[in-house]
């Protein structure tokens, strides 16, 4: 096992590049993260309705639904779910749009797994802290 241990983190990963989702799922699962795959925006929303997640990793450019659209819906469905944008498009503007819509952070492809793990960890901590505050 490598990287920061993130036991019991429930992660939803959304990307229309199936190979990418698959390999990333393998690698993250190996590191103790509970990963659910979604190959499209619709699948992602479906999964969200069925399960509760700690962190979401979202691609911005997808065949059926634009990542930004998905993000908007997600912000409504689960306002406290931290979303990490992972995009192949290096366009800062798209990522910045995501940030203004309330994404937790963003990364550009290809990225180091270590980096992604760190961001997931930070997102998880942030969510926990938020929950802690709200629970009080």
């Amino acid at each position, binding site marked *: 096992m490598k990287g920061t241990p993130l036991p019991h983190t429930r992660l939803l990963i959304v990307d229309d590049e199936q190979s990418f989702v698959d390999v*990333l799922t*393998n*690698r993250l699962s190996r590191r103790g993260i509970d990963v659910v795959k979604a190959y499209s925006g619709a699948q992602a929303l479906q999964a969200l309705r069925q399960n509760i997640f700690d962190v979401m990793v979202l691609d911005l450019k997808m065949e059926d639904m634009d990542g930004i659209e998905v993000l908007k819906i997600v912000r409504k469905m689960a306002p406290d779910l931290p979303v990490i944008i992972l995009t192949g498009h290096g366009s800062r503007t798209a990522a910045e749009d995501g940030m203004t819509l309330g994404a937790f952070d963003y990364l550009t492809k*290809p990225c180091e797994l270590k*980096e992604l793990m760190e961001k997931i960890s930070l997102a998880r901590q942030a969510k926990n802290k938020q929950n802690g505050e709200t629970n009080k």
Partner: protein
Amino acid sequence: MHEPITDRKEFYQVLTRNIRIRILLVSIIPMMLTLGILCRQFHLAYSEKISAHIGELVLKHTQNIDTFLKEKLGNIRYLARQLSITEPDMAQQFLTSQLSELKDEYGDVFTDLGLVDSDGIQFAYEGPFRLVNADYSEAAWFLKSMDSPYYISDVFAGLRGHPHFILAVKLSAQGRTYILRSTINFTTFNSLVENVQIGRTGTAFIVNAQGQLQTHPRSGTKEIVPSFIADPTIFKDEHTLILKHKNDKGNTCLYALTLFKTVDWRMVFRQDAGDALRDMWNAELFTLIIFLVGCTAIVSVSFTLSKNLVKRIARADRKNEAMNQQVVESGKLASIGRLAAGIAHEINNPVAIMVEEAGWMSDLLEEEAGMTPDGRSEFNRAIAQITTQGRRCKDITHKLLSFARKSDATEADIDINETIREIVELTAQMARYNNVTISTRLAPDLPFIRFSPSELQQVILNLTNNAIDAMGKDGGTVEIVTGVKTQDDNWIEIKVDDNGPGIPAQYLDRIFDPFFTTKAVGKGTGLGLSICYGIIQKMGGTIEVESHVGQGTRFLIRLPVNVRQTTKPSTSDTTNNL
């Protein structure tokens, strides 16, 4: 895309010529027509006036002389009626007393008086000559006087040997016919005519019906009487005639002729046409000089004006062309940017998968038993290599994306240093190929500046590409330096220095001109620097060049810090950790 330069030159030449011709046509032709008509009218009016003046003058003098002759003839006729005695002694007494009375009355007009009988013998005479009993029976005047009641002779020398003329009146007494004659003092008579003088050459004289001179023309002139004057038909019904005559020497003279009433003589006034119309000719010459001066002025103005005008048009055309070219260039840059962004995005995804798969292999390898340590380390090396090359791909695509992001022509607050860094990264490969090293010395904390990123890219790209091109295969170094000048105004300075061959001094003031290029035909459009110039000027900045042949060239761009110093937008650190 644009017409060849030679066509252009020809076009401007034709344009210049057309403008010039039009200016000349609309200014000189009306001026010429106006002047021509005015001069002609003036000429006619003036000539007419002069003719009328001369005619009047001559007529007046003719009338004077007519009156003079009539009066003198009247005197003699009166005497003839008084004379009743024809006895010689008595007649002699009568003549003596009458001549002295006439002299008292008229001065020296009458020279003598004589009485001639029908045989032509002058039996009584009073006067300064000894002419008593002179025989005139053969004299022309005597024969003519016998045919008419009175007669005025032509001027002749006669018996006394100097010019004179005779007034003769026929009378009858005691059944016989006599002639009373008197001689008119020629000098007195001559002075009547001689006084008529106009201008330098105007002179009057009297000729008889045969065209022989009856008076001395103005002293100092030798008068040759043209034959037409004696021709009685030229007068037709008119009394006064004004005509022009060209003499043998080619001089045109103005003649005024008048017939006398009392005698068959003509009064002639003659003046050189040039002299008579001198004032008119002077005025016309003056007008002509003014006209020529005006024409010269118009011609020179038409030349300079058309030249300047076309120069301006050409300049505007070039500017326009350069602007069009700039639009095309920035459009090109923008579409290249979009293309690059598309490609970068498409490549990023597969590369991401490859890198992740390599990572997965590395994950799996950790648990794989039964491998030799060498084999394992070789696998790890290979996987690490894939990851490294993936990262390299990412670097390239990110540079492209970053470039594309800035190919947008809309203005934004930009960091000049960042733009320069990107350009340097992009051109580094080409520079290496040409043995050129590009280095930068960028001042930290440059204020942000409001500028179109793509245009700034264009400027820096053009300058670095020019520098690389100029150095050829030998290579060299290009250094880009940025800095802030705060002493007088707030300026950002960008210097692009190279140690290439330099630009010859005679080209320096033209290098920003559109279409000026020293590159081989087809290699350069001659627009690069002119576009740079246009962009920098539009932004309120300046671009200058300084070059020494053999040492290198420096382009100095100064941009005003035109917005209040904006703080850099806060970007999360992660953006920079690519």
